[in-house]
């Protein structure tokens, strides 16, 4: 039998201080001065309680690249970051393009127990962009896949993209597109602009993202299906998504923590820790992304946690792998970029990091307001204080994060998954 927990004095989604009583995996009661004999008590005075964070975009690397991350290590890092659910991207080896692979990943998540793991299914077989994977089989599997993506690659063939969008309507799925025009980005290394020109690195133009997003919005409208745009990175993309939403089309979008905080100037060091796809953009883009997340044009923050072993980053820029890790720092970065700037309150953070991503992924057990009867998936966060991010003790197998050593506000204190703590006092429970 699971223990009973009494959390005292937390500010629910940043609002009034209340107590939370957790029993049998659900929130049994909220209110002031609750009593529960025999319960384990957590003094959460002045801590923020958020519904457990949901990541729509996580690379867990298993199966295939267990040297970079495993389901167990990645989800442990996620729990430390306050997440209770992660969507494991499909670009593993073998690719998650069959019911067998997605069930394997799902089962590994259950065994590890740090987070609920929702595998993302590949849109096309082996991510090759040529033929649809068995989307229905993955949807019907034990993993109950609803989000499909070839992330890392763009589903570029417009006919295939149309068919994928149409097909997933049968089971209320969504196509999460990595929007990148392949011909415009051959060999691309860095945002095409001032820095790429000066550093002599091949440019990754904003138009290569925006053109695909525009096309996909039109396709989603045409077949009346759901499109989700991964890692939006440009001001122009925001404009297109805003336009599509105004039309009433079923388009959602995510932004990464790094695109909310970092800009292309960091590449001047040629340190590939700043190499990511889509690339870091300009301060104009960062401002547009923050505004869009605040006004809801961008629905959610997703980490695009992309672990890589040291040798894939300790190289020349052009040969280094794309990607950065970010699960453990995501909420702190969001506080820095969105809350401390006055753009978003804590209720907004709960919405953008839990409620909306859970809704996009069609997750019943996550993203629900903290009230009696809801599943006890929640995060306790201390927004006071500021400290350098120390990831030396991270359970993740990789360390390719640009945030290590950066002064950031806040601290994840505890995470509860289904009524049991996965993190207590900032450490794995």
């Amino acid at each position, binding site marked *: 039998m699971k223990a009973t927990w009494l959390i005292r004095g937390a500010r629910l989604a940043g609002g009034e201080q209340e107590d939370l009583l957790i029993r049998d995996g659900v929130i049994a009661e909220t209110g002031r001065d609750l009593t529960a004999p025999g319960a384990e008590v957590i003094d959460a005075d002045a801590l923020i309680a958020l519904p457990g964070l949901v990541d729509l975009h996580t690379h867990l690397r298993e199966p295939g690249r267990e040297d970079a991350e495993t389901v167990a290590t990645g989800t442990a890092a996620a729990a430390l970051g306050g997440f209770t659910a992660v969507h494991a991207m499909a670009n593993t080896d073998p690719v998650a393009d069959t019911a067998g692979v997605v069930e394997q990943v799902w089962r590994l998540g259950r065994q590890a127990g740090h987070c609920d793991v929702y595998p993302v299914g590949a849109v096309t077989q082996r991510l090759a962009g040529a033929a649809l994977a068995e989307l229905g089989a993955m949807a019907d599997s034990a993993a109950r896949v609803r989000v499909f993506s070839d992330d890392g690659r763009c589903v570029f063939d417009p006919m295939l993209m149309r068919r994928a969008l149409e097909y997933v309507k049968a089971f209320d799925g969504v196509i999460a597109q990595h929007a990148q025009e392949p011909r415009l980005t051959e060999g691309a290394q860095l945002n*095409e602009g001032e820095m790429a020109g*000066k*550093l*002599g690195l091949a440019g990754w133009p904003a138009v290569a993202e925006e053109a695909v997003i525009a096309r996909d919005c039109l396709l989603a409208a045409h077949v009346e299906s759901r499109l989700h745009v991964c890692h939006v990175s440009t001001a122009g993309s925001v404009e297109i998504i805003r336009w599509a939403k105004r039309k009433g089309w079923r388009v959602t979008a995510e932004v990464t923590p790094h695109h909310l905080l970092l800009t292309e100037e960091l590449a001047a060091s040629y340190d590939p820790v700043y190499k990511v796809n889509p690339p870091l953009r300009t301060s104009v883009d960062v401002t547009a992304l923050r505004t869009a997340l605040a006004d809801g044009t961008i629905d959610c923050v997703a980490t695009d946690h992309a672990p890589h072993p040291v040798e894939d980053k300790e190289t*020349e*820029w052009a040969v280094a792998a794309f990607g950065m890790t970010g699960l453990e720092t995501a909420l702190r970065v969001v506080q820095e970029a969105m809350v401390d700037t006055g753009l978003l309150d804590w209720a907004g953070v709960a919405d953008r990091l839990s409620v909306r991503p859970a809704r996009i992924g069609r997750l019943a057990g996550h993203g629900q307001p903290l009230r009696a009867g809801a599943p006890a998936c929640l995060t306790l966060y201390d927004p006071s204080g500021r400290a350098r991010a120390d990831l030396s003790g991270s359970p993740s197998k990789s360390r390719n994060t640009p945030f290590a050593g950066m002064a950031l506000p806040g601290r994840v204190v505890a995470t509860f998954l289904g009524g049991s703590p996965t993190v207590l006092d900032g450490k794995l429970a």
Partner: protein
Amino acid sequence: MNRHLISAADLTRDDALLILDTAEELARMADRPIKKLPTLRGRTVVNLFFEDSTRTRISFEAAAKRLSADVINFSAKGSSVAKGESLKDTAQTLEAMGADGVVIRHSASGAPHRLAGWVRGSVVNAGDGTHEHPTQALLDAFTMRRRLGRLEGLRVTIVGDILHSRVARSNVWLLHTLGAEVTLVGPPTLLPVAVDTWPCAVSYDLTASMPKSDVIMMLRVQQERMTDAFFPSVREYSRRYGLDVGRVALLPEHAIVMHPGPMNRGVEIAADVADAPRSTVVEQVTNGVSVRMAVLYLLLGGMEVSA
């Protein structure tokens, strides 16, 4: 001066002038019967060339040897990764050998930056990808100053594939620092999209730029640009951006014609222009040794030049 020479943009005006003046003194030495100086005796310079470049390697080798340094040529043809050894492993090998200076040529932009973080010795960038080639810019500036007597206010027109040219980048930063007025000329496809943020003027019209140029510097058109829609055909490129006798006639009397080599005769430069008296192509090679001696001397040396 910095410990490394990685980007021409890192050089202050005083640094750059010190290098040019030192090169001038060292060039006088080259006219003596015995060209060798004992300055870098006991020092080790490694020429680390990941890309074929016989011209640049020989120039650095001659420079280091004339200063009595021990020279090790490390030719890792192709990418280091293709050979299975990372740049970091190579750097650790050089450290173990006790290299005082590493001259690196690499196909990846930024490789010298990375190397400088992994070795204790001085790193000299001998060309990195499409980023920079600072000693080329220094020898170009040296050549201009020798021929025309000054750099301040000099009107320098650089023509061709600016987008992929490390020579153009280094020249823009260095010449700007030294007070010259640079104009970049090329088809719009071969200019970086944010070239308006560079400290220079830009034009698409070579003919119109000719009468306003004290120096015209032609860049090599790489073979791989000819198949990727940067321009419709080599002949059209040559007609619009090539330097032929007709265009040269529009230059002021005193103007010089430069080319970093190797030249595509008949593409960006006509043969009779390349071989004309106002062409400095051969002098540039000679001056390259003096300038590289000056760089190695200033980065690695400690003794006065005994002139």
